[in-house]
């Protein structure tokens, strides 16, 4: 269970990182259409993966939709903790 969570999070991190690196590139190349389209494809994939993750393991961002009578945001693990 923990291993699955880690693997899904790793995939999210990799996808988001690809998107963010393109984000920086687009800051200085705002008209690069290929980069733009690639960016959105990564964002779309990230959204899909994050939905999966949050449903099973709790929020990654401040929750936008009600899904629990507990405020799960504070739950362990926090990102800096050894996991």
């Amino acid at each position, binding site marked *: 269970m923990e291993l699955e969570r880690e693997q899904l*999070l*790793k995939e*999210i*991190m990799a996808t988001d*990182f690809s998107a*963010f*690196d393109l*984000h*920086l*590139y687009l*800051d*200085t*190349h*705002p008209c690069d259409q290929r980069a733009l389209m690639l960016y959105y494809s990564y964002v779309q994939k990230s959204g899909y993966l994050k939905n999966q993750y949050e449903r099973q393991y709790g*929020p*990654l*961002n*401040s929750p936008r939709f009600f899904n629990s009578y507990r405020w799960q*945001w504070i739950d362990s693990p*926090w*990102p*800096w903790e*050894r*996991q």
Partner: protein
Amino acid sequence: MWVYEKRLEYPVKIKTCNPKMAKYIITQYGGPDGELAASLRYLSQRFSMPTNEAKGILNDVGTEELAHLEMVGSIVYQLTKDVPADVMEKAGLGAYYSDHDHAIYPMSASGVPFNAACLQSKGDPIADLVEDLAAEQKARATYENLINLSDDPDVIDPLRFLREREIVHFQRFGEALRIVQDRLSEKKHFVAKPPGNPD
């Protein structure tokens, strides 16, 4: 405005404590060429930049540096977690432990508390962007030094990631500088002087 995502930018999973390394790595938390200095520098300079590309890149790299700050803090935290006082002392962290226990405190490897004097926000876009290029090189060099000091792959892995990011930032700032220079030289187009003005 900032939004926090509850994850690190890149994983930090350190299995073996090493307070001696922590003493060196903290310099990228609160030292002169560290991530706090970088993020404050870029987030402060962005206000007075003349082109949107420069505003964008300073804003966004400044934001990424905060994520790096978090990573460096996590590395130091994991390297010193549960390390008893006498081991901290033997590793050279006796003074740090006295004042901060196992907390993370922004300072350099030599114990100098974080100081904004290590950065400038000059308001002159060329001066600022050239400083930023230098800042990225200094950070890259520091990460190389820290990598040389370590033999633990769990530590070297995130340090290597952080080093590579500095190289990418250097590239982006170079582009921003070129764009600013092009834009500034555009403004110097001379048009015919209005009649009546002496040459």
